[in-house]
């Protein structure tokens, strides 16, 4: 066989995959429910220089297994490298890099806003539009619970911030994949 015949691979046709995807990624990890597992994951991120945007930890249907949902910026971090490093942790059972269009993701947030007599109605109107709930009230403040996508909560924050945002607490996103219609 001669070099360069069609059976061989032309070197100029070879391409390496790109490291950065340029979008937000939601990683859903199933991990063993043991002491120190979160420290291993957090330690991995800090020593490799990966920055976590949000992190949520909670139980699953199996008491021996916890779910960690974290979001990362794929424009800054090579997600492939992140998941491969995570896979090396013995307590990490499964990792899913959630496909955006096949994923339902939600975050919950609590906002305490200044609500004077004049602005109270407008804030309550915003809450209604965003299907948020008023969960606490005082003479000068309202506390509002919002659930939704990350973007929705960002949008709500932008709407109420001019009224005087006193405090905000966000959970970080949790995510689950969509069922297929035939499931």
């Amino acid at each position, binding site marked *: *066989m*001669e*070099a*360069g015949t069609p*059976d*061989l*691979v*032309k*070197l100029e046709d*070879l*391409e*390496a*995959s790109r*490291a950065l995807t340029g979008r937000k990624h939601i990683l859903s990890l199933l*991990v*063993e429910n043991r*002491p*120190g597992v979160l*420290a*291993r994951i957090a*330690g*991995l991120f800090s*020593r490799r220089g990966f920055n976590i945007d949000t992190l949520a930890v909670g139980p699953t249907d199996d008491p021996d297994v916890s779910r960690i949902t974290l979001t990362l910026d794929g424009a800054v971090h*090579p997600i*492939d*490298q992140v998941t*491969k*490093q995570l*896979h*090396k*942790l*013995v*307590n*990490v*059972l499964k990792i899913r890099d959630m496909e955006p269009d096949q994923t339902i993701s939600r975050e919950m947030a609590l906002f305490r806003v200044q609500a004077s007599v004049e602005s109270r109605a407008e804030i309550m109107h915003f809450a209604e539009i965003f299907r948020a709930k008023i969960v606490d009230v005082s003479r000068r403040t309202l506390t509002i619970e919002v659930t939704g996508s990350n973007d929705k909560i960002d949008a709500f924050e932008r709407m109420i911030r001019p009224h005087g945002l006193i405090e905000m607490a966000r959970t970080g996103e949790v995510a689950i994949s969509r069922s297929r219609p035939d499931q």
Partner: protein
Amino acid sequence: MRAADALCEALKAEGVEHVFGIPGGANLPTYDAIYDADFKHIQARHEQGAGHAAEGYAKASGRVGVAFATSGPGATNLVTAITDAMLDSVPTVFITGQVRTDLIGTDGFQEADVTGITLPIVKHSFLVTDPRQIPEYIHAAFHIASTGRPGPVLVDIPQDLSRADIEYEPAEGPPDLPGYKPPTEGNIKQIRLAAKALANAQRPVIYAGGGIINADASPELIEFATSDKLPVTLTVMGLGAFPAPHDQWLGMLGMHGTRTANYAMDNADLILAIGARFDDRITGKLSEFAPRAKFVHVDVDPAEISKNVPAHIPIVGDAKDVLPKLTREYRALKADSGRLEGWWKQIRAWQAEYPLGYEDSTDSEIKPQFMIEAMYEATEGEAIITSDVGQHQMWAAQYYHFSRPRQWINSGGLGTMGFGLPAAIGAKVARPDDPVVCLAGDGSLVMVCQEFATAAAHNIPVKVFLMNNGHFGMVRQWQELFWDGRYSSVEMGDSPDWAKLADAFGWTGMRCADKRELKDSMRAALEAEGPVLLDVHVSKTENCYPMIPAGAAARDMVG
């Protein structure tokens, strides 16, 4: 059965014959069990020494090295050795004592959060919370340490739990670790693709590393490289995986590699990386590393692939599985060997123009490179050589032509000064019939010289050939070349008197400062009974060349 006895039974079931360590308060129950154990315990004189000895043992034999330490300072003294084992992928199990469970978290005497401290430097770790876990975790630790990409595993055992009574049956089969499934077999489609690319490459280079040695895949590497006339270079961790005196051998690559190897990487059109991880000491300036090449990267650790250099053909798998398949696929293509003639002509031209060399003295002065050549001759190229870190290490890599795997034992990734002596002790315990020589630096050796006592007490006949230049030589070299000759704290002076120090520890101490006597001195040291130190006084300010300055590209080599 007492849990500490079950620990020893579990070690025995894992085939352990030797362990290294130091007793202390928190591991008293364990040491009480070791008193009756079937394996031999070698008492070191500092836990770091025990740890490096376990590494030397593992590197010389391919078996898991084991080191014990007590809680607190005993365990923190292991940290350097654990990190070293992590960076060089050495299969090791470290077993530390911990304070009683009721004291954990109270800042008790000799308490340190050892699992916390070691979290970033272990392949995995276990903190025992139930005595029944002790043998279970030992079996899991051996499995994790020795499979996939090897590495250190720590088992931290609170004192009270190791005294508890438990039922113990030796484990059968591998432990149940649902989150640990190391890959083994390479994807055949990818291997076929790599073969087809290689068969088309005009300027290929095989760049292999310590992964070949860990996988015991040296014969498979030789078989593949010689299935055609493929040029081979190795990292400092890979030396010995391909025989140094060989027609297809380019020499070591990287910062102090040969010009031929580095120029070949710079000009290659296809680089096959196997069991190597594109460390900065290999690549130099990453953006100018091998700019003309496409990369096939084979590694058992998927995270290494495309970590530093994007791979065009990634293959996840054990080199021992991948290489024979690659050889088969490559042979089937019947590649035209004639296509490599131009490439070899170029390589031969580099070899002729840039051989490794140095200007020898015209008097009795011993040049450091001459010392390595003398060592090579005195040992007939057959000894297991351990080394410390610095100039002498690089000269050994250049001038001692390692011909077989596990012959060269050094600290490549972490670059731990003081590694050589304890590693030699471990290597000699593992391979009692092979001559073991520690090529030491005077800056390094003094950091671990308490381990002279270990070799003397256990009559472990290692030979230390000390390259004594009175300096932290590599640092001195950098200060000369890159810091305007402002020599800051790099001189060591002439303390200690090494031969006397060796004598004081019960070794035979020797000294040589005349190159005409050097080989005979070395032969005498090798033939003498018991451990021997030969203090060799070499030129004080010789620089190690050639060299790629840090952050520069291969074609900018100096010296």
